[in-house]
């Protein structure tokens, strides 16, 4: 027994001694500066494409079509935005389409998953676990594979070229993640609170409104946020469902703007303006609600 301890002790002392050197300020500082420099380099590389796009969007028309391109605009002009504003049915149409679809998606997702999350977390439902698996089915079958039959069904009910139809697809994509987050969040509410309310004679609707709603606000924000961003950015579903120009969402009109011409080629300035416009809401929402974003990713992305 003592032998073991004696055998173990010397290397430990030696090791600790060795360790002391790199921890002394003189050896540690270069490493810290290096890490800081790498951080800055990484940040710069990641931001560069976004800044380049933003700068390109305010170049005057000729400069935007110039080859080789300029790094920094020599002139400043909002012509690209003006052309985008009047492009096809007008930017407003597409912006509103995207926004309305995203809001409908948020509404549908919240309504469905709040009720179901409450039910699953708080009630003795028969066959609860198999039911939960069915509800998460969209995790197993990628929606990309289901677009053909959904398209056919939607054709029968006049839901193609409809923002509601597209929002339904986006809701289906978002449902498993949202339900998962909601159920967990309802389960985390202490049972005592609910019992106290029940003793006071509150019914399930009142309990849902007064006890649970305030407690699950962070989950609501996370679910709404992800639903909004998913819907705002989704491309393939919109590509399949929308074939009338006036029902296009922003990603679709961006892609079509690329092939249209101003000076005999792609209107690069307008394309950059479009990219900037379609990126801004997401980045804005992210900067405002960063905590909820990260929490959502940490809690739900892998489960």
């Amino acid at each position, binding site marked *: 027994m003592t032998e073991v301890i004696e055998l173990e002790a010397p290397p430990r002392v*030696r090791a600790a001694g060795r360790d002391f050197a790199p921890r002394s300020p003189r050896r540690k500082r270069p490493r810290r500066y290096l890490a800081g420099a790498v951080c800055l380099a990484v940040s710069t590389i990641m931001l560069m*494409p976004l800044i380049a796009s933003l700068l390109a969007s305010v170049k005057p028309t000729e400069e935007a079509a110039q080859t080789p391109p300029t790094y920094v605009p020599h002139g400043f002009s909002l012509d690209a935005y003006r052309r985008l504003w009047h492009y096809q049915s007008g930017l407003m149409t597409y912006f509103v389409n995207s926004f309305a679809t995203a809001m409908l998606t948020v509404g549908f997702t919240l309504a469905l998953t709040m009720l*179901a999350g409450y039910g699953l977390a708080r009630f003795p439902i028969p066959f609860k676990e198999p039911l939960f698996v069915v509800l998460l089915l*969209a995790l197993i079958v990628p929606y*990309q594979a289901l677009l053909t039959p959904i398209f056919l069904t939607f054709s029968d009910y006049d839901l193609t070229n409809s923002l509601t139809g597209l929002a339904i697809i986006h809701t*289906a994509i978002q449902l498993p993640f949202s*339900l998962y987050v909601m159920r967990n969040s309802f389960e985390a509410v202490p049972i005592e609170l609910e019992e106290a309310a029940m003793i006071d004679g509150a019914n399930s609707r009142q309990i849902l409104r007064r006890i649970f709603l305030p407690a699950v606000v962070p989950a609501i924000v996370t679910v709404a946020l992800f639903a909004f961003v998913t819907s705002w950015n989704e491309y393939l579903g919109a590509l399949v469902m929308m074939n009338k120009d006036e029902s296009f969402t922003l990603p679709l009109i961006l892609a079509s703007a690329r092939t249209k011409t101003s000076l005999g080629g792609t209107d690069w300035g307008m394309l950059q303006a479009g990219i900037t416009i379609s990126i801004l809401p997401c980045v804005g929402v992210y900067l405002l609600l960063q905590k909820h974003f990260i929490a959502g*990713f940490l809690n739900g992305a892998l489960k």
Partner: protein
Amino acid sequence: MRGHKRRRLIGSLYVAPALLFVLAFTVYPFARMFWISFHNWSLITPPKYVGLDNYRKAFNDDQFWESLRFTLKYTLLITPILIVGGYLIALLVAGNTRLRRFTRAVVFVPVVIGLGASSLLWYWLFSARYGLVNKVLLDLGIIDEPVLWLGTDADRSNWAVITSVVWKVLGFGMILFVGAIQAIPTEINEAARVDGATLWQRTTRVTLPLTRRTILLVTLVSAIGSLLAFDQFYLMTAGQPRNQTATSVFYVYLNSFPLLKLGYGAALSLILAVFILIFTITQMILTRRSKT
């Protein structure tokens, strides 16, 4: 007893809307896809039952297997970059200094923007005559004349797309790795440090093993995402040259919609879905097992 029954009913009613939604927009389409896959159907003519013909055709369709091979290649190339790159950045920024928080936030920004928008942005950056990639490489003297990145050479196109997607989704892995690294109790690292472990030893013997589960799961999630790639290739290469960069989802889309071979498209979808299922089930088993 009556109270219990009542609660069962109320609970079921709360779940009912979501259940109906899933039945209508996931289960029913899935069932209908099976049915369609046994028919030839172009929307114009009525569906005609052809049995397993579509599947037989799929197994002999070189283009389909080519697209599957290309998708796999893309996945095998991009996934290690995303995992290693994401993990290295996570190690760099896991601390909570101001600069590290800032870097974390910046690396994550492209994750929230759309893949469509980012693909078009990079389509411009990689454009031979108007793009900044060539401009930078020319100015640095790395190349002598503009390179045609997209659409002429399959491998070059693939790497251009990979670059854009790495930029776009690197932050996804990073943020999950940072979460996992920060969840390691500080005492463990302290103990290792007291025992004289160097930074390298602490990383390889403490941090890596303790975040193994997250690494595995991020790998699977990334791989599934890459296997379903569409937007980036549709928008950046349009499958060119000669459909060599058409991914599987691309090929399914091409058959189902512009070509309106609905039955064939459905059969391809199902084959693809089964393929993806293998990855998804692995992921689920892993999460289930380690959640206890």
